[in-house]
């Protein structure tokens, strides 16, 4: 057996020479023997030498050929040796597995769980976080926005700033685009709504998107006035029958747009958009730098780093800031990789999850190592005998390792299935709330990862038992009759591994507990309005509505009348921006003061808005019949705004105005609005963020803002039951106007999706970890009891009471458990700090969570300890001693 390994060593030390020498020796021996024979036959030594060489043909050439042949032989022998021993060991592994089906099933099951979870999370992280967006040289793509005086990122930009920034030489190209909005489309005689953005002509040049047919729009398409559009592959197939000629236009109620091209399915941006309209912001330039209504993407030059691009843009921005005091978003710029800006805060959750599954997998490995070591004590005799028969230790280690790698591979195969199923599950539940979810697939990289991880996990769980079990003292073991425990120190390593498992499980339970408490604390917050409300979003388009203000009011009045007529409806209103949706924001000035520099969310609503959403009136009044297009302009503000803008003052009767908010009034001062009431605060961006300053204006006083609004309806039953009725009644008002219906409750859930996904996954992993730790301590203790059968039987025969035997086993188990819990708490205290960003309403050191997690894990572990302990006391000493 050692020969094989000597060969390997020889190879490392320049085996070629050794093999050539060996061949030479063999040839020389042959020649010498031949000469001896020939001389004995009567030839002279010289003649004999010549003859002996002649028999090789050309002697030197033959020698060279034989060197080559010998090397080839050596290589194939070596390959066969390694392969042969691996195959033999794998065969042994299968045999061993059959001999211990219980251990094998549990080990494979645990590995399948651990590997499956790790593979699933890896797939999600690789696809969503690590992989660049599917555009050529995606690393050059940047999301750019300005910084305010406090270096806060504005996220959006004004077209005026973009026009200045885009000239920076660090950028190859750039574009700005609107937030996605819903656009009504006429298809045949029915109306529908698609998600659209308006973008400057360079959008697709920046991205480098692949087009299925046609071409992207360009700056000249944007400026020449002919209505053109680019559509998604999905719309092209569903609405245009995949017509390669693009002969049909895309129609809205007012215009027909010539389709220039079709973007390939994953090449659109932002995700989920179906229609892109080109716009030229230089034609009717908006000179106001505070109107940050656009999002900006840019492609840096290939020879410029992101940092250099940032530096160049910062220079441009500061230059603007110096000459223009209104440039309040030019204190600097933020340049983020477009990939990161798309992923957003999901990546911090995924980082936590990948650490979590790593810990679960570690627990799995420790678990298998511990139980395999306990089991291997029984195999110590086999190892000792094999080693006495000449098996090298390295060979025994190889065998043990391969047994575990075998387990890893089988577990990995099952794990792939689990991963596939769980990714399906996650995408089914959370798919529409996770960015880039449509890009998630399992490919060759995932399989390679799973394979490599299976082997590593198998080897990791095998290395400690392999090293320990093969380090047996032969004489000691054979003398002791092979009753295990000869290696001394009663499975100390096994106990340490189980302690480690318990510590890691507690770590995860604590993390899950903290997230769970955060989630509950988020849910317990008051959102400030009733979310059991149905929404119906509609945009009035078409020649009828475009110019005729009265027509638009007529539509909304009719719609509201229809909605109020639905049986059981308790309130209906319309609003331009609804809570939990997009918002409009702007700077607000107070009459008689300098520019405040403070902003507010700006909402246009009908008079029943507050009643419908049950937003309480704090002081003054809300909008009513007394407000109309001809009466003085009024506003309602919320508490936050009242405190921020009028601290210690009465806001009622004060006059405010939003700076240049209304479209078409760029640069002109908006009219003053008199504050008539203060209402309660709402968390318009969801429970995770705080209430903002908000101002409300009456929609009858802002006719320009009435083209696109959302109706809100509160009924006596669940809002979801109203949706069908709302759709029908909206069609009755005008069949050409399509509405999107939904509920505020759904929108609320969407804002919590990431948190709930992370919490659910972490809780599931923590539960698995706790279970594994319990299994681990159960396995090790059961085995210890089985190993000490003789000792326990003797004690019992000598009169030890059951209680004494019970406490003997219990104390051994409890020691292991307590050490694990102690280390777990210390580890959790250290690690939970990294979770701080994800915690709400709970500190990373929340004592309740720590106690709860420790108690929960303690109970599970205690149950696992009790079973073997009780079994030890039930033993009949006579039978136990006879079995020996």
């Amino acid at each position: 057996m050692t020969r094989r390994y000597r060969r390997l060593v020889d190879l490392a030390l320049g085996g070629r020479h050794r093999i050539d020498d060996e061949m030479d020796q063999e040839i020389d021996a042959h020649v010498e023997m031949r000469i001896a024979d020939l001389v004995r036959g009567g030839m002279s030594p010289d003649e004999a030498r010549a003859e002996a060489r002649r028999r090789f043909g050309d002697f030197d050439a033959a020698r060279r050929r034989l060197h080559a042949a010998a090397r080839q032989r050596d290589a194939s022998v070596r390959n066969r040796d390694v392969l042969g021993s691996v195959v033999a060991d794998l065969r042994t592994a299968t045999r061993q597995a059959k001999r211990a089906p219980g251990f094998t099933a549990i080990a494979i099951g645990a590995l399948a769980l651990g590997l499956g979870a790790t593979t699933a999370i890896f797939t999600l992280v690789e696809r969503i976080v690590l992989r660049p967006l599917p555009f050529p040289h995606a690393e050059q793509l940047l999301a750019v926005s300005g910084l305010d005086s406090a270096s806060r990122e504005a996220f959006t930009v004004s077209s005026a700033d973009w026009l200045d920034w885009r000239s920076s030489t660090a950028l190859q190209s750039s574009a700005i685009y609107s937030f996605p909005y819903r656009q009504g489309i006429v298809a045949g005689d029915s109306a529908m709504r698609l998600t659209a953005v308006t973008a400057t002509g360079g959008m697709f040049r920046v991205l480098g998107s692949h087009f299925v047919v046609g071409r992207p729009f360009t700056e000249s398409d944007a400026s020449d006035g002919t209505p053109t559009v680019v559509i998604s592959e999905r719309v092209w197939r569903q609405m245009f029958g995949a017509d390669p000629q693009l002969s049909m236009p895309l129609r809205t109620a007012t215009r027909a747009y010539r389709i220039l091209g079709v973007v390939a399915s994953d090449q659109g941006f932002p995700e989920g958009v179906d229609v892109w309209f080109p716009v030229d912001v230089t034609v009717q330039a908006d000179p106001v730098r505070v109107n940050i209504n656009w999002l900006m993407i840019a492609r840096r030059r290939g020879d410029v780093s992101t940092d250099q691009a940032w530096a160049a843009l910062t220079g441009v921005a500061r230059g603007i800031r110096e000459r223009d005091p209104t440039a309040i978003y030019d204190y600097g710029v933020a340049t983020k990789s477009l990939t990161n800006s798309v992923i957003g805060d999901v990546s911090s959750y995924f980082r936590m999850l990948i650490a979590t599954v790593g810990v679960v997998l570690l627990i799995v490995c420790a678990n298998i190592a511990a139980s395999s070591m306990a089991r291997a004590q029984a195999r110590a005799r086999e190892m000792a005998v094999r080693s006495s028969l000449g098996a090298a230790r390295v060979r025994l280690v190889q065998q043990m390792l391969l047994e575990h790698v075998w387990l890893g591979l089988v577990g990995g195969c099952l794990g792939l299935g689990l991963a596939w199923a769980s990714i399906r599950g996650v995408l089914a539940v959370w798919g529409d709330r996770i960015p880039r979810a449509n890009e998630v697939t399992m490919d060759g990289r995932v399989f390679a990862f799973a394979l490599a991880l299976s082997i590593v996990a198998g080897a990791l769980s095998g290395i400690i038992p392999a090293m320990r079990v093969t380090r047996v003292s032969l004489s000691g073991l054979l003398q002791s009759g092979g009753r295990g425990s000869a290696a001394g120190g009663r499975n100390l390593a096994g106990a340490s591994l189980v302690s480690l498992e318990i510590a890691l499980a507690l770590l995860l339970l604590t993390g899950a507990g903290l997230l769970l408490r955060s989630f509950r604390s988020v849910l317990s917050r008051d959102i400030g309005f009733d979310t059991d409300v149905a929404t119906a979003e509609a945009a009035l388009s078409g020649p009828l509505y475009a110019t005729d203000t009265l027509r638009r009011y007529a539509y909304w009045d009719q719609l509201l009348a229809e909605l109020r007529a639905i049986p059981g409806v308790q309130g209906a209103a319309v609003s331009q921006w609804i809570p939990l949706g997009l918002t409009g924001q702007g700077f607000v000035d107070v009459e008689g003061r300098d520019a405040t520099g403070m902003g507010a969310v700006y909402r246009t609503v009908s008079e029943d808005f507050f009643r419908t959403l049950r937003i309480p009136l704090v002081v003054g009044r809300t909008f009513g019949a007394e407000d109309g297009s001809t009466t003085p302009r009024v506003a309602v503000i919320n508490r936050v705004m009242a405190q921020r803008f009028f601290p210690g003052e009465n806001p009622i009767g004060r006059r405010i105005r939003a700076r240049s908010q209304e479209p078409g009034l760029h640069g002109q001062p908006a009219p003053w609005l008199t504050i008539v009431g203060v209402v309660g605060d709402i968390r318009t961006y969801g429970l995770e963020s705080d209430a903002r300053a908000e101002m409300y204006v009456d929609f009858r006083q802002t006719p320009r803002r009435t083209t696109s609004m959302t109706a809100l309806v509160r009924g006596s039953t669940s809002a979801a039951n109203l949706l069908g009725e709302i759709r029908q009644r909206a069609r009755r008002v005008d069949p050409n106007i399509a509405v999107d219906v939904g509920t505020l409750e759904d929108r609320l859930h969407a804002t919590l999706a990431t948190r709930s996904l992370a919490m659910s996954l972490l809780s599931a992993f923590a539960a698995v970890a706790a279970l594994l730790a319990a299994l681990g301590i159960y396995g090790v203790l059961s085995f210890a009891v089985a190993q000490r059968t003789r000792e326990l039987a003797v004690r019992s025969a000598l009169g030890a009471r059951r209680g004494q035997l019970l406490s003997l086993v219990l104390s051994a188990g409890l020691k292991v458990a307590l050490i694990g819990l102690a280390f777990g708490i210390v580890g959790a205290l250290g690690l939970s700090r990294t979770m701080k960003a994800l915690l709400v309403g709970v500190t990373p050191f929340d004592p309740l969570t720590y106690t709860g997690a420790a108690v929960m894990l303690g109970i599970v572990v205690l149950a696992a300890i009790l079973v073997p302990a009780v079994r030890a006391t039930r033993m009949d000493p006579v039978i136990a001693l006879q079995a020996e």
Partner: protein
Amino acid sequence: MATDDTLPLLKGTLDLLILKTLSWGPMHGYAIATWLEERSRGTLGVDDSALYQALQRMEGRGWLAAEWGTSDNNRRARYYKLTAAGRQRLRSESETWLRYTKSVTAILAVAERGS
């Protein structure tokens, strides 16, 4: 000994002869060569270079295993012996060879009778 009446070896025959030779026990290369010369009474021309080529190839295929040992007259030599795979190979190759020669002989006998 390479006289005009030596027969050139048919392709593949040398492997079979070596396997057969080694079925008597481990031997070094020179012993195999002389054993073949003696048994064929000099009618088979085995080039020594070809013999060692064959030994390397067969060892590489796992039919033979080799080990250094000491010869009768105290000389270090590399001893070859059959492996289990080699024994298997010998059995199947001998069968094929015998069937083959039997068929060829039968045809030749018929042809001779006819002429």
